[in-house]
Each structure stands twice: as C-alpha cells, then as structure tokens.
C-alpha cells in the first residue's frame, strides 16, 4: 500500500476547508506509512484515534463555516458527517487485528474522504464563491 499525493480535484475553493482537508489527508498517509513499516497495533490504534478526533473537530469546523455562510442544507450535511462517523464506528469495530484489515481500514478512509470531499464539500466552496462577502468570513 502506498501513500497518496494531494491532487487539485480535491480542492473545494475554501482556503480554510482545504487547509484542514490537507491535515486530514496527511493523517491518512501517516497511518499508511505506519502500517507498511510494521508499527505495532497499540500505535496504530492511537493513530486511528488521532484521525477520529481530527475528523470530529473538522466536521464541527466545517459545520460552523456553513452556519456563517448561511448554507441552507446544513442539517443534511451534518447527518452525512454523522453517518461517516457511524461508518467509522462500524469499520473500526469489525477490525481484525492484522495488517490486511488495517490496510482495508486506511483504504476505507481514503475512499470516503475523496467521495465526501468531491461530492459534498465542493458545494460549500461553490456557495462561498456565490457570496460576495465570503472574503470577510474566511481568514487567510
């Protein structure tokens, strides 16, 4: 399993969201690196906890931005976040403690990150560009 390169399709158009996404992206890479270099399960579990906590933080941060922007579909988006946490829960709890299933877990993270960013978070970027006042809300 190889680490990933950031690519421009993942960019949402919001500087703050993209900055957080990149941190998240790096965390997944950190996990992949740890798996391939054979780190022990305790360490892997701590990395997964780090990703989980960062995801929770990022979701709140992203939802706050949506509130500030007055995005209309915030409730639906929030539910998607919760669903992702739920999926996280299911995958985490059905994990066998071997290399392959950790790799599967990392792959799952990559997949939902890409699909959620491209399909959902880009809507925030689009909304941002529609709003003239957007620059005052985002700090660079």
């Amino acid at each position: 399993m190889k680490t990933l390169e950031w690519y421009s399709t993942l960019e949402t158009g919001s500087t703050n969201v993209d900055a957080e996404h990149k941190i998240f992206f790096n965390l997944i890479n950190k996990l992949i690196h740890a798996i391939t270099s054979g780190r022990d399960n305790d360490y892997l579990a701590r990395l997964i906890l780090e990703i989980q906590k960062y995801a929770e933080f990022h979701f709140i941060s992203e939802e706050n931005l949506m509130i500030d922007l007055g995005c209309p579909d915030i409730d639906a988006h929030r539910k998607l976040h919760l669903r992702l946490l739920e999926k996280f829960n299911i995958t985490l709890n059905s994990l066998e403690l071997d290399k392959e299933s950790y790799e599967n877990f990392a792959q799952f993270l990559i997949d939902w990150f890409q699909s959620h960013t491209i399909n959902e978070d880009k809507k925030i970027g689009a909304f941002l560009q529609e709003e003239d006042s957007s620059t005052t809300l985002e700090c660079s």
Partner: protein
Amino acid sequence: MMSRDSLQETILVVCDALDNVDILSQALKNTYEIVQAAVNSETVERVCSKQPVNLILLDILVPDEDSLQLCRSLKERSQTSWIPIIILSASHREKDIVSSFSVGVADYIRKPYKLSIVKERIKSQLELLRARNAAELASKIKGEFLANMSHEIRTPLNAIIGMNRLALESGKREEQAYYGRIVQESAEGLLGLLNDILDFSKIEAGQLELDNHNFDMGRVMEAVINSLELKAREKGIALSHIVAPELKLDCRGDSLRLRQILFNLVQNAIKFTSEGSVTLKAEPHGAGSAQGDKSSFHFTVTDTGRGIPLDKQKKIFTAFSQVDTSNSRLFGGTGLGLSIARQLVELMEGEIWLDSSPGSGTVFHLILSFPGAVKTGADKPLAAKDDKFSIAPQSEESKAPVGSLLLVEDDKFNRILAQTLIQRIGYAVTVAENGLRALEILSRQRFDIIIMDVQMPELDGLNASRLIRQCEQGSAAENIEGGALLPEGITESLKGTHTPIIALTAHAMKGDREACLAAGMNDYLTKPILPERLEEILTKLQMEKAEGQAT
C-alpha cells in the same frame, strides 16, 4: 450466581441501520439472548410484550423526535418503564445528549465507541437492575411481613387485654383462673413470636453462636413433645415420638437450639395438619449400613397434613414465606419458624430437607451430628427438674428463708413480679428502685445474692455493679460518676466480701452479656423472667457457694 443469570438476560437491539445491529449482536450474542427490532414504537412494544426484555440498546444516528418518542412511550407504560435504555449515537451534541436523558434513558454512548466499553456499560446497567429488583422484592416482602406481624402481635395482645379485663371484672375464682390461663398462654405465644424475630435478626447478622454442653437427647425430644401436646390434643391430632434404641443419647451440642429446631418442625406439622397424626422420630443416620454412626442423628417429623406442592418446597425454608398468602391468613404465623430452623441447622453443619406431595402429608428430614458427651467436672447437671417446675403458690411459706436477696429494679410492676417469684423460691427479698438506693442498703446490710436490673435512672446496673466490686476490693473512689457521693460506710461494709450479682435485662442482644460480665456481674437473666430459669440460676449460685465453702 451472576453468570448464571446473565445468560438468561435478553437485550433488545433497536437500530436504524443494519450494519450497527450486526456489530452489536455479534459482540453480545455469547453473553445475552439478542432480539432485534426497527425503530418503531409498535414493533418494540410488541417484542417487549412477547418476551421478557432486560435492556434495550437504541442504536441511532441522532436522537431525533422519532427515537425520543419511542423512549417516552416505553417509559410511560408500566410493563416497560423499568427496562433500562442505552442510546448509542454518533451525535456529540449537548442538546441531543440532554434530551435523551430527559426522556429517561439510562445511558448515552457516543459513536465511534469501543465495544469493550459498551459491554461494560451494559453489564453495569444490568447489575443496577438486578440490585433494584432485589431491593423492590425485599421491600415488598418486608411490607407483607410487617402487615402479617402486626396481625400476629395484635391477636394475642387482644386476648391478653380482653381476658385480663374479664378476670378483673369477674368475682369468681374459677373464672379468674380460666381467664388467667388464656392470658398466660397468649402472652407466652407473644414472647415466642418476639424471640423468633430476635433470633432471626441475630442469625441474619451472623451474631448467633452455639453454646455446646452435655445433654440427654431423649429428654430434649420429650420436652418438645410435652410442650406441644396440649396444642395437638386441642386439634385432635395424635402426637408421638420414637427414639431408636441403638442411639447413644448422651450428646454434646447446643440442646436449646436443637430443641428450637425440633419444636419449630413439630409445631409447624401440627399447624398444617387438620386430622391424623404427627410423629417425631430419631434414628441413627445411615441406619442399615455397617458403619452407621451412632452419634449422627436422622430425625424425621411426619405429618398427615395437606402436603406441600413441589414448587413451594424450596421456598418454604426462606424467611417470611408460607405456601401462599391466603394460607397465612388461614394458619397464621410469621413464616419465620422454618427459616430459623434451616439456618440453625446450617450453623450446626447439618442437613434439612422435606418429602411431600399435596394431599399425602409431609416428612421433614433432619440430619445432625452430636459427638458423645464429654465428661468434665464442670459439666455438673443443673437442677434437674425443669419440666416439673410449677408456679403454683407454695403453701409452706412459714419455712425459714433459703437466703437473703437484694432486688434492684426501677419498674414497679417488674419489681413486684420478680419479688413474688423469688420469694416463692424461698428467699427473703429486699427491694431497691435504683443503683444508688441499692448502694445505700448495701452500706448497712449484706446479702447472699443481688439481682440487678441493667437500665435504671440515677445509677444503672452496670455502674452499680462496678462500684460494688471496687468496694469489695477496697478501691472505690468517693465520687460516683455524675457527682453523687458513695454512701458512707459502704466500703467498710463490703470490703473483703463477694456477693454474686445477677443481671436482669430486657436487652437480649449479643454484647449485653459480655458488658454485664465485664462490669463484674456473675450471670444474666433476660426479661420476661422465666421462673424455671430464675430457679436454675439461683440453685447454681447456691451450689457454687456450697462448693466454695467445702473446698
């Protein structure tokens, strides 16, 4: 006990997503019975009405109005309101967690969760539930017991008060004697009831200790039969006892407690038998086998009563239980007797069980071992006339007193009673109404024996006894605790003597006896005073005194 129960506990997993059901069901299916349902009030209520559910796991994305309404309706219905609900949700929002608890859920676990933590939180909820159920059951049983007990206490009290009034109003001696006998019998019944309650609480608190001594098994059995003969005769039941001749009757053990066990079993048999017979029998345990142990007794109490259904047979040895509550009205009683019997048997490391079927009577079996009597000089038999003692007035009042006795008791009626009983035994009695008065009398006069109440105003029995012992040793301070002065001349009067002091107390709890002995008292009598026991103690003290003089 816990692990056996937990296998039978059922958890209902209510879920809005199939994946979640799988994870929880897989993780819990080895420990609990798992049933599943969708988030829907009707479905959940139907499941709960079809089978007992001990806990509900409500696994949802977010506690929305539907799931909160489900919780509300479960909590509103009495059939399901006690079932603990644990919500598992991905929402970390304060509002969601608070509104979940406000509809009565027991716990809220956030996703992603660790299954090990979920398992522990389920376990702790189920433990709470078990503890709560046990407490509710105990409270219900105690409530019933209290109601029952109130009835049991009122019944003899009613007879005592009513019959006593009749006796006072009646001018005829025969009538008075008749009423008096009923008062006596009712009062003794009441005392038996109080003793049962006391014994039961002592056993429950692990405070009951056996008092081993030499005794004659035949006499114990006879005494049980004698004391219940009247009751059996009144009901028209034949009461008999059989002792196998090969048994060795010189035993060592706690004969009073053995007597209590046998008494309870025989009394119980008489109570539940309306016609026929009750037989108490003792055989060697393992009779027939070559090495039948002659000191191991197999007692049976056989009746021709109504019998006990199989499902009630185990319960009958637990406290406060009779076969059913309507029976307890029919037969009366506290339901403590057999429970006390069982616990005493356990204390004696014996076995008790019963054979019965409805309609064909009951046989209680009891196996107890009593090693042979140990011959020691100290175990001299006490005044061997406990069953022929009578409190009938003695005519030989002109006889010289057997000794002088100081009775210290503050309650007027108890003083009169004790004084009368002691005078009948033959002592010249001087009375004092408290410890201080007693010391004043002792400064002028000497006695063979002092009987002293423990709880008294001014100077209680324990302090008075301590002071008397100090004076006898010539080492008393001049002031009594509380400021009073020792009566003049008391040290001179008592120095070098030793007067036996018997404590008289209504406290029958463990520790009282020790406190009395520690205060320098020699023996201990509990109220109500039994004439037999009073005479026994006085005789023993006389014998000791005689021995002391002889050696």
